[in-house]
């Protein structure tokens, strides 16, 4: 048995473990922490009416009492602190929740406290045996929150930080953890626009979009090491996440300086526990199905009639007339289709989709430790399937952590891991291919409608090679040295390295490049090395009512990447495919190298007076190699203050607030999210054949991307911008945290105002410059928002517990300035609107999304359409005929006045909200439902035009509708208000039904749970898009409805 005194000393020495080691249940460390807090900060334990004078020491009548501590569900709790109030006597419960303790007098009081639970006090009286049930503390104010380069008690936070526990997000499978955060964290917006991608594909935003083209993705920091930008971080196995903290305001993010402007997601991984060993196993199987029926042409006759009508209206020959068209495709006549003389009706969806897709996720691990060391080993395997046949991702991940307390003053922590993944790409196949074409010819070869047809999905699936694999490893070593009382030094070094390979082969006949070159194969290989090292000192001093903590340190990051890509073209024998590049007639090699460096110094000062008034000052100086010579360094300061009002007597006297804290912060953080070398000119490369020799040629202007409906046009860049510098975001935040109604309702509300200046953006250039786009920084964008998060324990009686959580986010975005007209070349339109085109062209128009002063980022710009023309207007021009769009600005000669363009929509939502309901029964059953919704955003729905089922209501002489134009194959579609739809939606995101296995029945078990989760079963929306959740530019993109995933899982621990 340990005495409290000894434990307390130990704890206080390790007061400053920087990462969130305190915040997990069943960890002896928590107990140390609580023990210490209960002595050093009495107010913390909510001692109620207790005063010191109450205590009386009696050394004569010592006797043993024993007991068991259970949670709400009757499960024993391990590691619960049981102390005798006012003394140093105490113990912790064992694995069975049991404790034994010596008491000296009957009037002594036992204090039973445990992280995340309400502390209880019980008079000993004459009892010698106790059964104590601890209730969950709804908000867990004792929680320790991980912040950059340190951790603080939640109640001491001055900044705006939201947090979610790992176990909340792992009831369904995903290739990357970001998609699982949707609707879980206040202020964090996650767009899962590619939810059938087995590798995961998400857009993650904290408090809106502030940058234009610089990255808007938050920085992800795992166990203190910056990993990269959120979006698709496959490196993190979601199953080993203990908690995720999202740093939102400037005070919280400024410690990450130049990378903090978009918020920071701190991931803390699980660690082993002292003095015990557990083996655990999680298994999940998910089935993916379409959430709605597919909408494509099944009725070939109607399809042929409408297509022909469309061609005839264009004044060209119809297609279904039983002849070859100019491309050589034979289309049967409508008669042949009608009477069945043309026998083929292929349901391409059967060849394209899996119904269902099956994803399996296995995780096993061992965790444990002895007095001085802890370890955690986890092995995860994910076998993910996309909806399309052959679209696969599998990943195996091994993660290890080991901590060893070498001496009272020295703690060594290590984390290392290895992950390997394989991706087979078979995506974007044409499931709406004309059903009149067969899959195979009579001889078993694949059917091609003409020689240039490269769209037979079965041929593509079977004959094409496109896959990638990677192997990555990481290792971190951290030394925590308690130099002297209150002073701790942390030295940390981390290396991440990996290599990836991709393989492609395009066979002749069935693929375009394969046909062009008589087989084209490629193999790419790349590797990277990222070194991060930092050192920081923390000094903590408590002097009477003053509590001071100062932290300062330096960090250095270096990223080197190299790549090699080999292509072979022209294979006499294609049997060996891309494995025989040396057998190709022509071999091409491309390679690359890039390097970036970031060097920084940072500091943070925390000061608390009387545990009521808290001040934080944070600053970081960052130097980045990405910027121009004179702009390499940036300085990012921030300050925050908070007042724990509930400690004040006048609040206590109200007897209303169990907890009340107000916070305010202001600071500056930066964004350097651009690719390297933008501050120097970059030359392009091509080939030129001259007099029997092929030259490799170079010069000003290089390919930087593609544009056009089929991405057929090259975009040129490479112009230097020597003045590139940091993008800066200044943010003001004011927030309140409170708990009321006997802690049954907790509320966190924040208002923020962010101003981003020196906007990093890829500006369009007028094509006469010889460049399409260049990086610039100029202009200002503002985000104002309100975040509300409510947590209520609504029912907590008898066998039932019902909790509800509401997250509400509102953000208003506005472009304030886009630089001077001289420097940015913005346009002033006929209505005086000042704007700059931004983003790709759409349909037949050059652009849609603009940055317009006074309007939100990404606003839609285009023509207004006022219904459909019913009577001829003006000339014979096609645009003036009945059945055409009645554009505002349509001229008599069929031209449309470009000055009639205006802002026609806003893709930014008015608000997003999620509601999380949880019902728990003591029998072990639990039910959780998560609803997620978005309101007030516009979608530019191109599906409105091409969705099969909508075609039938087109304008005709007999159907003079105002809703749809006539079908006309050669109509050139401009960005117009006709395509704008309300994008609001409400979705049932998750429904989880779980059952906790009774440990009493399964004695060998420590914990066991089985569950069934359904994600995305229902969505309510009004858009014509297959899925209302579109990218932040508001353009519809989903090729088919969202996937509903049904997951069955089991978790056991013994």
């Amino acid at each position, binding site marked *: 048995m340990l005495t409290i005194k000894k434990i307390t000393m130990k704890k206080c020495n390790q007061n400053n473990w920087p990462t969130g080691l305190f915040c997990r249940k069943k960890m002896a460390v928590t107990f140390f922490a609580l023990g210490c807090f209960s002595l050093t900060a009495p107010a913390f334990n909510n001692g109620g009416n207790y005063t010191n004078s109450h205590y009386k020491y009696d050394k004569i009548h010592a006797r043993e009492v024993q007991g068991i501590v259970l949670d709400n569900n009757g499960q024993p709790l391990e590691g619960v602190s049981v102390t005798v109030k006012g003394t140093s006597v105490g113990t912790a419960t064992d694995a069975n929740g049991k404790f034994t303790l010596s008491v000296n007098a009957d009037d002594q009081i036992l204090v039973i406290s445990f992280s995340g639970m309400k502390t209880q006090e019980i008079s000993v009286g004459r009892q010698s045996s106790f059964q104590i049930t601890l209730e969950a503390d709804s908000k867990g104010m004792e929680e320790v929150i991980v912040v950059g380069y340190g951790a603080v008690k939640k109640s001491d936070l001055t900044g705006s930080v939201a947090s979610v526990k790992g176990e909340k997000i792992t009831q369904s499978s995903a290739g990357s953890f970001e998609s699982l955060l949707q609707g879980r964290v206040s202020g964090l917006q996650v767009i899962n626009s590619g939810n059938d991608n087995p590798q995961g594909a998400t857009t993650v935003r904290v408090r809106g979009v502030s940058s234009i083209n610089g990255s808007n993705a938050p920085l992800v920091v795992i166990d203190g090491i910056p990993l990269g930008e959120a979006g698709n971080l496959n490196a993190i196995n979601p199953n080993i996440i203990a908690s995720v903290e999202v740093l939102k305001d400037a005070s919280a993010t400024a410690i990450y300086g130049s990378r903090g402007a978009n918020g920071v997601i701190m991931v803390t991984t699980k660690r082993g526990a002292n003095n015990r060993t557990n083996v655990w196993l999680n298994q999940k199987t998910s089935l993916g199905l379409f959430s709605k029926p597919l909408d494509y042409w099944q009725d070939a006759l109607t399809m042929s009639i409408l297509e022909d009508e469309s061609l005839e209206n264009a*004044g060209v020959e119809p297609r279904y007339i039983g002849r070859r068209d100019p491309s050589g495709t034979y289309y049967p006549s409508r008669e042949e289709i009608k009477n069945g003389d043309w026998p083929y009706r292929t349901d391409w969806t059967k060849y394209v989709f899996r119904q269902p897709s099956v994803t399996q996720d296995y995780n096993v691990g061992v965790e444990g430790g002895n007095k001085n060391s802890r370890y955690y080993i986890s092995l995860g395997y994910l076998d993910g399937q996309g909806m399309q046949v052959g679209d696969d991702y599998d990943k195996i991940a091994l993660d290890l952590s080991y901590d060893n307390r070498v001496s009272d003053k020295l703690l060594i922590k290590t984390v290392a891991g290895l992950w390997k993944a394989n991706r087979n790409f078979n995506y974007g196949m044409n499931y709406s291919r004309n059903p009149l074409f067969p899959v195979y010819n009579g001889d078993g070869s694949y059917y091609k409608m003409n020689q240039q047809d490269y769209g037979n999905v079965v041929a593509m699936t079977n004959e094409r090679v496109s896959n990638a694999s990677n192997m990555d490893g990481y290792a971190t070593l951290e030394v925590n040295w308690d130099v002297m009382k209150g002073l701790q030094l942390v030295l940390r070094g981390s290396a991440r390295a990996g290599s990836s390979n991709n393989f492609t082969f395009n066979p002749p006949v069935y693929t375009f490049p394969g046909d062009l070159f008589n087989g084209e194969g490629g193999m790419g290989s790349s590797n990277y090395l990222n070194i991060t090292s930092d050192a920081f000192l923390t000094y903590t001093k408590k002097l009477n009512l003053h509590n001071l903590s100062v932290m300062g340190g330096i960090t250095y990051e270096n990223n080197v990447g190299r790549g090699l890509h080999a292509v072979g073209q022209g294979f006499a024998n294609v049997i060996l495919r891309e494995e025989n590049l040396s057998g190709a007639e022509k071999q091409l090699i491309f390679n690359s190298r890039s390097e970036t460096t970031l060097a920084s110094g940072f500091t943070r000062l925390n000061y608390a007076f009387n545990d009521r008034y808290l001040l934080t000052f944070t600053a970081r100086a960052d130097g980045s190699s990405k910027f121009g010579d004179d702009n390499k360094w940036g300085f990012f300061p921030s300050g925050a203050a908070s007042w724990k009002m509930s400690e004040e007597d006048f609040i206590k006297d109200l007897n209303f607030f169990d907890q009340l804290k107000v916070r305010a912060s202001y600071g500056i953080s930066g964004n350097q999210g651009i690719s390297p070398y933008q501050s120097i000119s970059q030359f392009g490369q091509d080939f030129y054949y001259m007099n029997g020799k092929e030259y490799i040629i170079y010069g000003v202007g290089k390919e930087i991307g593609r544009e056009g409906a089929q991405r057929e046009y090259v975009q040129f860049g490479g112009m230097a911008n020597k003045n590139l510098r940091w993008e800066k975001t200044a943010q003001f935040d004011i927030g309140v945290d409170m708990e009321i109604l006997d802690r049954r309702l907790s509320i966190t509300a924040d208002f923020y105002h962010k101003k981003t200046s020196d906007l990093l953006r890829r500006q369009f250039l007028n094509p*006469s410059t010889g460049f399409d786009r260049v990086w610039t920084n100029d202009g200002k964008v503002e985000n104002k928002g309100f975040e509300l998060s409510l947590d209520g324990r609504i029912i907590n009686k008898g066998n039932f517990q019902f909790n509800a959580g509401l997250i509400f986010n509102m953000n208003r975005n506005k472009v304030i300035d886009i630089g001077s007209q001289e420097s940015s070349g913005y346009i002033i339109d006929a209505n005086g609107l000042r704007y700059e085109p931004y983003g790709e062209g759409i349909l037949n128009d050059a652009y849609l999304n603009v940055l317009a002063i006074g309007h939100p980022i990404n606003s839609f710009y285009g023509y207004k359409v006022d219904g459909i023309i019913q009577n001829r207007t003006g000339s014979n021009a096609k645009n003036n005929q009945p059945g055409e769009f009645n554009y505002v600005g349509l001229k008599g000669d069929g031209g449309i006045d470009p000055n009639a363009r205006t802002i026609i929509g806003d893709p930014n939502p008015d608000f997003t909200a999620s509601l999380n309901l949880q019902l728990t029964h003591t029998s072990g059953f639990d039910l959780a439902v998560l609803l997620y919704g978005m309101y007030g955003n516009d979608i530019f729905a191109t599906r409105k035009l091409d969705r099969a089922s909508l075609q039938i209501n087109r304008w005709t002489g007999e159907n003079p509708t105002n809703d749809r134009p006539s079908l006309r194959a050669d109509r050139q579609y401009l960005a117009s208000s006709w395509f704008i739809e309300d994008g609001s939606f409400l979705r049932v995101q998750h429904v989880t039904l779980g059952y906790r296995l009774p440990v009493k029945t399964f004695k060998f078990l420590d914990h066991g749970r089985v569950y069934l989760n359904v994600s995305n079963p229902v969505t309510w929306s009004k858009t014509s898009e297959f899925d209302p959740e579109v990218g932040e530019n508001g353009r519809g993109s989903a090729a088919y409805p969202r996937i509903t995933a049904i997951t069955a899982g089991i978790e056991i621990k013994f």
Partner: protein
Amino acid sequence: MKFITIIAIAIISLTSCKRMLEEKPYGVFSNANYYNTEQDALNALLYAYDPINNIEYAARFMFNLADITTNQYKSYNRGLATPLYNWDVNPNTDEFLYFFKYAYLGVSRANSILENVPGMKNISPTSRKQFIAEAHFLRAFHYFMLVRTYGEVPLHEKVVESISQAKATYASIEQLYAFIIKDLELAIPAMGIAKMQGRADRVAAQFLLSKVFLTMASSKMTGAKGYEWVSDAEQMYAKAAEYAGAVVNNQTSYSLDPNLLNVYDVNHQADGVEHIFITSMYRDGKAYEGNFSQLPQLYGIGLPVIYIASSITGGTGVQKTIEATSSWSYYRVDNDFYDTYANNDLRKQLMVTTIYNENGTVLATYAPSNINSGNPTLNAFFYPFCRKYTDPLSLGTRTSANVYLMRFAEAALIYAESVGPTSEGYAWVNKVRARSGLDPLTAGLSPQAFREQIWKERTWELAFEGHGIYDLRRTNQVLQKITNKQVKAEYADFFPVPQRETDLNPK
């Protein structure tokens, strides 16, 4: 305190390590590390030629803009190759934007040569002189394309190096011509004569300058819009005659190829005497279209493999238009245009009316009524297709069929038009006619009638080679001569500068 000192030292040491943060362009050529060797300069020069070979420039869009818009082609209401077939166009139309962009890519790259090569050390004086002259030629070539297509366009004389230089004033047509003439006058004396496929020499520069003066002269003479400023048409014709005369009379490397089919023979593009400036796409070129050509597919009819006569004078033997791939029926010759050729004009045979089986027996014959045929072969053969672009040796779909940017026959016609109905003028136009088996032009024509004859001769000689609308514009005949489609009148004289340019750089 001790630790504050440590931090202070650390931060100070960090700020002093500026070199650590220096950005080095690993693996990328940049202004800083290029233009060192003579080969660098040559490669950069070829990069300035390179845009011409692309679909967006001469290898497709030039034909779309210049020829599809005229009576040379019609769509037959079959499919929708490009909206230019019926002038259903607006300032966002792809051809307008990308042709513009590629011409300016050429301008920017030529400007880069002109800025960097003069100061180079490791280069022979001969090469330096030659490369700079070629860059002047190229810049003039690109601006001449631009001014004829769009009229007033922004004038960039330097590589754009910052956003503040992006907006350039729209130069008047007069200023643009002055600029083009100056560039060519600088180029001509500095260039040598050496035929190289894919590169220009002095003869090409003289050819181009003669055409520049010719355009000014005829535009002024006919009252074509935009050329009111030209002082005197005859004076400009005299200048055109001076430079075209240098091409036809004062050099020995180029001449009229006596064999018409040789001009279009893919095997004689490099060594043929006819080609003064020709693109250099090559069937085994690396990467994608532009390094090789797909012109035969664009011109052929939609059948898998087409055999045509090996000779146009009536001999036996057949050849493929292209090896083992189908054509796209993209450029559809107007059969009325075909009918404007005299029956004894050999150039009429450059439009194919009979296709064969591999063994030489006739497979099908063109007839306008084929468009209604149920026979798939006949049904594809509803227009006589152009055989100026063929490559029987193509590697699958990759061919060496090139664009004939400057031919000797055109120089002869420029010269004839410039000098008018003189004996020399008659001599040169009749040489061109004679090669096609035609009798001499009627003697004693007035200058006006003679020049009108030359314009007709040009449509027959230079059909499907990217001259159509430019010749109609400079002779003020667009609305009169384009009869098989509805010309959008506002674009008759010049196509619109693309919306993206006018939006970002308003006129």
